[in-house]
């Protein structure tokens, strides 16, 4: 039975890796488009959940929440996004897919829980083109941006008491921003040129989290990520040169401080308020990008009806429902005195797997990003899916001994 279940998982995960297209036009700035970390349940709540004191699709960007898992749990997630971009009265569309989480958590002792995971923090995959003219000739400038940031991390959560949990996540972060610029002159070919930059950053990342529950229905959570140190390695080739140059220099990465509150205001009804601010400095955008980033501010509110289980509970009551609103001011540098911000709403649902072997979390976000005066106004619609499987999937059935 186990191989078939794993096959199903692979089938579900594979399309996220097979299909790549373009995403937000803004994502090509700096290190990519910041992703909501924590999975589809968190997306449906608007992107917060730092104080979500249960194990069901919790936001492990606060490592203290790992302390709440009762058993082995694995998460796989992906997302599909549609972008409708408007500029100068014209509109065009694009779509992208991407993975969202791969995480395994398990208890070591009743108070010490461990997590291992690969978490995408940012992503970019955009292609643009533009016709331009330079004195003597018209040319098409094609630009392609790929990359993002992924952190491989180990999370430790300690539940010291029902009122206090602390956690720490130590991760090794990989950032990559690869850019191609192709100048295609018309009608000649021999003048065409391509510039290629491949910046890779490696450095340690630490998240320190806390969860305080003064009352069973009220919890406060906070997470702090100090600024990071690491090294940029830049490989580049210019124009029509065959050789590739390489440079290495030390660099830094942004920090973050987030906090949230969750309140069960009615039985099985939760309300959440979350916020976070980033700590970005000049130079964080890349080794050759001297623009000044904006300090990002994210704010979200969400409400959730938790799932209910029991022998006399209907199927619909076993599902969890949620909705949220969000405002996200991003780190991308200002242009024309404007900052890029998202504003939108999200809805989500959690569907339990048979035999309580896990859950499917689904979420949809609709929002608007940027403005035409900045360069483009984008309407995005994003769907997220996360599969959460508990340890039943990894247990070998007892062999049936014939009588």
């Amino acid at each position, binding site marked *: 039975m186990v191989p078939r279940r794993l096959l*199903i998982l692979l*089938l*579900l995960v*594979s*399309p996220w890796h097979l*299909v*790549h*297209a*373009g995403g937000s*036009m*803004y994502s*090509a*700035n700096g290190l990519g488009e910041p992703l909501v970390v924590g999975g589809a349940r968190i997306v449906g709540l608007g992107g917060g959940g730092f104080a979500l004191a249960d194990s069901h699709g919790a936001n492990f960007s606060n490592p203290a929440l790992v302390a709440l898992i009762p058993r082995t749990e694995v998460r796989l997630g992906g997302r*599909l996004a*549609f972008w409708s*971009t*408007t*500029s*100068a009265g*014209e509109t*065009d*569309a*694009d*779509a992208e*897919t991407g993975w969202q989480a791969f995480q395994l958590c398990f208890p070591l002792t009743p108070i010490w829980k461990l997590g291992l995971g690969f978490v995408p923090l940012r992503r970019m995959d*955009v*292609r*643009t*083109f*533009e*016709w331009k003219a*330079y*004195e*003597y*000739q018209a040319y098409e*400038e094609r*630009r392609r*941006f790929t990359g993002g940031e992924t952190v491989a991390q180990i999370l430790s959560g300690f539940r010291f008491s029902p009122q206090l949990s602390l956690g720490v996540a130590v991760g090794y972060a990989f950032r990559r921003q690869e*850019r191609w*610029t192709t*100048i295609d*002159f018309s009608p000649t070919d*021999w*003048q065409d*040129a391509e*510039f290629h930059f491949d910046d890779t950053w490696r450095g340690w990342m630490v998240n320190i989290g806390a969860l305080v529950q003064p009352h069973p229905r009220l919890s406060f959570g906070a997470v702090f990520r100090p600024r990071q140190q690491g090294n940029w390695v830049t490989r*580049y*080739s*210019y*124009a*029509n*040169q065959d050789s590739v*140059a390489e440079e290495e220099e030390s660099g830094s990465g942004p920090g973050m401080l987030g906090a949230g509150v969750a309140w069960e205001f009615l039985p099985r009804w939760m309300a959440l308020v979350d916020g976070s601010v980033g700590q970005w400095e000049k130079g964080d*955008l890349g080794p050759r990008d001297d623009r000044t980033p904006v300090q990002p501010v994210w704010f979200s509110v969400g409400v959730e009806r938790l799932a209910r289980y029991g022998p006399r509970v209907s199927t619909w009551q076993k599902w969890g429902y949620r909705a949220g609103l969000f405002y996200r001011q991003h780190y991308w540098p200002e*242009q024309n005195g404007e900052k890029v911000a998202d504003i939108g709403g999200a809805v989500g649902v959690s569907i339990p797997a*048979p035999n309580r072997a896990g859950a499917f979390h689904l979420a949809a976000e609709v929002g608007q990003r*940027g403005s035409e005066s*900045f*360069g*483009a106004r984008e309407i995005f619609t994003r769907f997220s899916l996360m599969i959460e499987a508990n340890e039943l999937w990894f247990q070998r059935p007892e062999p049936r001994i014939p009588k």
Partner: protein
Amino acid sequence: MINTLRQKLVFTSLCLLVWLAFIGCTQRETSIGADAAGPPSEAQFDTVAVACTQDTVWHPKVSNGLGLSLQWGDAGNFHAVCLLRFLPASVLPDSFRVDSNRLRLRGTATLPEGTFAPGLATIWLITDAWSEDTVRVDNMPGYEALPLMENLPMNAEATDSFDVHLPDTLVERWAAGDTMNWGIWIEPQDTAEFLREFYSGESGIGLAPALFLYGAQYDTNDEGQWEESVLDTFVGPEDDAYLAWDRQPPLDGRMMLTQGLSQRLLLYFPVESVLPDYGVSVVHAEFSIWADNLTDANFGSVSLFKNGTLKTDAWRRDLDSTQTDQISIASYPFDANNEKVVFDVTAVVSDWVQNPETNTGLFVAASGEAQALGRRVFYNRLAQDITVVPELRIWYLAAY
């Protein structure tokens, strides 16, 4: 059949996979939003002006014998003589008698324009072998010590023909197939103060120089008897060319390009020392030279110029090594004010940037190099006015 929940789950997952694969391939097909994408482009355009560090005048050893004109006269510090060789035996029957002859050169232009006073010409009998393909001043044939004919009037009217009756004995000898027939040399006497341009043998029948022959020819009739008929025919030149000497003294800060004498300009621009040594793509390159229109050394009508490059840069050390070592590119006229010639050398300079060892320099020549004599004076790199020195301007693309 799909019955169990698990089967439904697998079926739904497969449908989802196909759906995602289909819609995930949506691509943006316009440039909408390009302004919001990423940092400013790494590709930046820039312009650099490269100064000439070496220039010289080059006299390639080429003959103008295949050109469309013949030159004769003295003007503008040029001295030009015509060389003609006819082989009348090739057009005559087996039996004939030449009673008279006439040499005709058809005129096409006179320089300076407006000259009316006629000049005088002298004809010499050439004594050495020569060919229009190879004859030049440095290998010109010799001629007899005494002139064949003297004081022949040469009208200055542009379209007048030069007609002369050559000694009959000479033409009879040519008609008989004299193997020592090397033709004649027509030279201006001191009184000529103009240049006449004639059509050459390459101009076609009717315009080309011709030697008309008059007399009688004999052939057998139907009854096998000798029968006399009138001989009235002409023969074009087997070889025709002109030789010219440029007696113009050099001018400070100037370089002179001539037409008819194949006097070219050679220039070197150290592109590799000016442009970044990595990651440059040449978008456009222009090479400009400015003419000195105030000097009297300008002569004739030379308004179309061709540029080229050389196979090696040996000319920078040994000018004689440049012989026939050139690659012609394209022709360009003067600008609207007749002050400057601008050559598009984008392809050449792009190659220099990619392969600096191919920067062997540029040459400039008159497009009609074998045509009528003419001279244009240009400023060289030592000109006092730095705004008119030769310049190579490059528009290039580089990454920051």
